[in-house]
């Protein structure tokens, strides 16, 4: 075997943009490049500059808000006196609202653990990689399973009288099921809902649920966790 056939030499083209480079492509060990390299820009300065601008904008907004909005400080901590109502930080108020409805083992342990497991598991499920619409194939069995699971959830929420969760879940499930009955090629909003995948519906349900519970916990709960109207 001759040594000189183990690699080939070439010169990169377009040296008006790129620096001239010599390429050695050795046999057997060459890196395979897949995909296309279109519309690329140099990170320096394009990315660096944009990041600096983002950082400056953020700093300006934060400083302005910090000048005019004081962080709250209440009375000295007193283990003998619970304020009424005692509220967690705003991002846990959704959880606290759940604790009002369900037993602590469900709302405080089971639901958060399931959410975390669900989030971690998202990329490892085959079914959502393609983002295939929910009602594309095996329509009728899917509809039966979907409605069955939704009904079990609704019964669970009903037993614990969690009506805010019940109503929201029912509306979102109804929108999802509507895609089954509406024929293709109607208005753009319906078409949009019809083409959503199951993970999309689950995540959207989770986000809307979290937002509603957080808003209720923040603004609509008064002494003894009773319902109050914030404008009264």
């Amino acid at each position, binding site marked *: 075997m001759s040594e000189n056939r183990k690699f080939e030499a070439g010169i990169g083209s377009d040296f008006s943009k790129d620096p001239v480079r010599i390429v050695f492509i050795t046999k*057997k060990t060459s890196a395979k490049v897949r995909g296309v390299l279109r519309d690329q820009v140099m990170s320096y300065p394009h990315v660096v500059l944009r990041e600096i601008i983002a950082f400056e904008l953020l700093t300006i907004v934060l400083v302005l808000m910090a000048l005019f909005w004081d962080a709250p400080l209440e009375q000295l901590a007193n283990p*003998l006196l*619970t304020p009424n*109502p005692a509220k967690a930080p705003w991002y846990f108020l959704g959880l606290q609202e759940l*604790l009002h*409805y*369900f037993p602590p083992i469900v709302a405080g342990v089971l639901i958060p653990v399931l959410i975390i497991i669900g989030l971690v598991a998202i990329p490892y499920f085959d079914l959502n990689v393609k983002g295939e619409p929910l009602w594309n194939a095996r329509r009728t069995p899917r509809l039966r399973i979907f409605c069955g699971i939704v009904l079990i959830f609704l019964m669970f929420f009903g037993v614990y009288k969690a009506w805010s969760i019940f109503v929201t879940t029912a509306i979102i499930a109804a929108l999802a099921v509507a895609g089954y009955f509406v024929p293709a090629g109607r208005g753009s909003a319906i078409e949009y809902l019809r083409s959503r995948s199951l993970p999309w519906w689950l995540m959207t349900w989770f986000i809307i649920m979290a937002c509603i519970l957080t808003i209720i916990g923040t603004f609509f709960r008064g002494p*003894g*966790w*009773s319902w109050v109207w914030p404008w009264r």
Partner: protein
Amino acid sequence: MDTRNPDETEQPGTAVNPDRRDFLNALAGAAFAVAAVGSIAVTVEYLSPNVLFEPPTNFRIGPPENFALDSVTYLPEQQVYIVREPAGFTVISAICTHLGCITQWSEDINMIACPCHGSRFRKNGSVEHGPAPSPLPHFLIGLTSDGNLTVDKLTIVPPTQVFKA
């Protein structure tokens, strides 16, 4: 000539007895596992305080005459209610069984109410409604020889046990 790329073929080590190598690997792995478990155990031990400066669980609350008949008295230091009824004394925890908030005795509804998540308890500690999973525990109450009532928060008694003073 060997056409395989030397970078992608497994390189044999210097010739050794494979049994000996496996044994040493297993030994090293086991030693590492024991060390890891031991480190975690002593770290947990180190982080668990042995001496705590917390309020006493056994305390005196004065003579029975201090508590009026059919009254509910809240002791803020010890976080208990002293309930005196015609049948006798009971001592109920004031800490909500739901998430540990301090409940408040409310005279007008004749109920113990939790401000955090809206649980309500009856005068005997049982749950009226709300998310609380279990009734408020009852503590042991007794009388010392010099006529003072004592409460032992470490001993939980059934709600039917009433102390006649």
